[in-house]
């Protein structure tokens, strides 16, 4: 989609709406609450009926939900198992490392936010802002070191990574890994070289034609059969690889959509200026293409985040998997509703945060305005 004509129209409307000298904008109608209700909810008899029915339904359902949440539900199962939900079976005496990760990431987040906002006024902030991607990229090994240990910290085996911790690690690795791979595949699919194009298309279409769960099963069950004896990559690592391979195929198609949205004139103009072809892609095409598909990419990441719950089916104890184990505790048998509602809430909080962050990013980059 070419943003140009839309932007033009918008500016036209804006200029037409400018108040002419001597005549102000018409005063906003002042209705008051009763007037607003009458105009919007009871404008006709059938709207009135609809309103009454909807309000009744909302009331009936709402009171029942609230009554269940506050009276019937027994939230002890969540309170007692909160640590298990969040940090899983991570050793108790090493929990501080998870807190360190949380503080580290939160600190980096706040610093990024501050730098982003103060970049215009302080040169130091502007300097930091330019290095934000690098800082985030370098933070990744730090987080892995803190969680896994080694180099001075006791090693925590990946079989103990579980709960929300595992879910987040899978999602982050999936996102960080699938993004460059997806871009590469998208470029490959548009390449003029037949072999590169054919391989990219083969990969994308094969992976997109297979459900994620089969890829995860292959990674967990079939993969060790194919490997030579003694070579046995970690189980969590295999799940991560499966997620990355799967998501990168979808990512490639999203990015390809963005690449097609960049007008051909951009490439021609850049080449006319004498840019080398890899610079044309890196500096001219990709920035515009990626900006155009931010919503699609974020949608893909949110979907990836929720797809990590499928690793529970292949026996990893992510947030969903640990919920299954918690439901088997003799003292909490049958607490399905409470446990799964809590799990859903956690997933929602993270998905919605990603969605909010993407909207902010879109505003900053002016997607849909320019």
């Amino acid at each position, binding site marked *: 989609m070419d943003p140009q004509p839309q932007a033009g129209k918008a500016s036209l409307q804006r200029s037409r709406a400018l108040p002419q000298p001597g005549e102000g904008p018409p005063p906003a109608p002042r209705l008051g609450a009763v007037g607003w209700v009458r105009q919007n909810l009871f404008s006709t008899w059938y709207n009135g009926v609809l309103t009454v029915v909807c309000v009744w339904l909302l009331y009936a359902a709402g009171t029942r939900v609230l009554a269940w949440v506050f009276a019937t539900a027994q939230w002890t199962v969540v309170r*007692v*198992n909160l*640590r*298990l939900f969040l940090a899983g*079976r*991570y050793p*108790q005496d090493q929990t501080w490392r998870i807190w360190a990760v949380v503080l580290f990431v939160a600190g980096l987040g706040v610093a990024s936010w501050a730098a982003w906002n103060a970049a215009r006024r302080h040169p130091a902030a502007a300097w930091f802002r330019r290095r934000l991607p690098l800082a985030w990229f370098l933070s*990744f*090994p730090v987080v*892995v*070191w803190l969680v*896994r240990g*080694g180099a001075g910290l006791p*090693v925590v*085996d990946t*079989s103990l990574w579980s709960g929300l911790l595992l879910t987040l690690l899978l999602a982050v*690795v999936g996102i*960080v*890994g699938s993004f*460059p791979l997806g*871009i590469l595949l998208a*470029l490959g699919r548009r*390449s*003029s*070289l037949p072999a*590169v194009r054919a391989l990219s298309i083969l990969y994308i279409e094969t992976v997109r034609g297979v459900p994620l769960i089969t890829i995860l*099963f292959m990674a*967990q*069950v079939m993969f*060790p*059969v194919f490997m030579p*004896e*003694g*070579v*046995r*990559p*970690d*189980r969590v690592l295999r799940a991560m690889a499966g997620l990355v391979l799967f998501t990168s195929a979808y990512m490639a198609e999203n990015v390809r959509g963005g690449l097609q949205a960049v007008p051909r004139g951009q490439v021609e103009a850049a080449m006319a200026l004498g840019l*080398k*072809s*890899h610079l*044309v*892609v890196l500096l001219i095409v990709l920035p515009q293409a990626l900006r155009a598909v931010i919503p699609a990419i974020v949608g893909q990441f949110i979907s990836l985040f929720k797809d990590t719950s499928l690793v529970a*089916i*292949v*026996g*990893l*104890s992510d947030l969903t*998997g*640990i919920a*299954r*184990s*918690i*439901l*088997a*505790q*003799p*003292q909490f*048998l*049958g607490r399905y509703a409470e446990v799964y509602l809590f799990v859903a809430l956690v997933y929602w909080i993270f998905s919605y945060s990603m969605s909010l962050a993407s909207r902010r990013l879109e505003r900053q980059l002016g997607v849909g305005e320019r």
Partner: protein
Amino acid sequence: MRGWKVLLPLLVLTAIVLAACGQQAAPPPQTGQEAAPAASPTAPQTAQSRLDIVLARGRLICGVNGGLPGFSYVEPDGRYSGLDADFCRAIAAALFDDPNAVEFRNLTAAERFAAVQNGEVDVLIRNTTWTVSRDTSVGMEFAPTIFYDGQGMMVRKDSGITRLEDFQGKSVCVQTGTTTELNLADWMRRLNVAYEPVVYDSIDATYEAYAAERCDGVTSDRSQLMARRTVLPNPDEHVILDVVMSKEPLTPAVAQGDARWFDVVKWVVFATMEAEELGVSSRNIGQMLASDDPQIKRFLGREGDLGTGLGLTNDFVARIIRHVGNYGEIYDRNLGPDTPFKLDRGPNDLWTRGGLIYSPPFR
């Protein structure tokens, strides 16, 4: 030409980035699990036994269900609990004198046998029924049964039903399309009891119907009945009858073709049973070690060399009992009267008390 120029630097760049990521995400193997060569499931006995691999690794990898009440689940503090989990611990205690040298691995029903065959887990203790096809064509080797499950029947206490014969003219809730339904029909026909089956598609609907008193009894595997009973509105008003209508021997399994490892798993399980029969428990192990009874001396490794014959230490039984307890203790801890399940020993009692738990002599 243009395509190459664009792609090559990008390829190189991404390869470098990915390699860097990969190195971070996959630090050099330190766990020893990767370093140890895996034995092929059909390896001849001259090949390295899984026993050596496990001993070299320093911990046991045990395949469990991970979400089955009473058998294996995770406690709020992150510890695995349950009958299956305790037998994993018993093997670890025998090998390492440390019941916590176990890595539990949740397995689904679909992947459990593949995980044993390709060496992902050392032993499978995941409520698995011992059948002839699994023993032969699936390539498992089954150790002694640790829980004799079977189809049972739950009724309300005040119904006055104590045997299947009492179901004359009464109704039974059962899930349709299962072997459970067929077993029930067979048994009732054999006993010549005219009962009324009330069938449901889903297992949840079956128990809901029973809870709503739409039938006099409900039938399913006993281990499932006991778990379901605890979530009924008044668990104490229901009893599980002392009848078993089908055979579901839940049994630990190892890969076929590794006799040394199979022997270890087999005799660890037998040791818990023999200990109960001899009256050796985690509470009295101290006194028992000082006992003069030659049988107990031999059993606990103070005499003879029963352990070294297995490739273990002679005191391996003492280690198991000290850390995990005998069969009765394990059973009571996970399913017995002090648990919400309150499941009678039934067929899981010692043979001396009319059950099926029987160990060959330790001699």
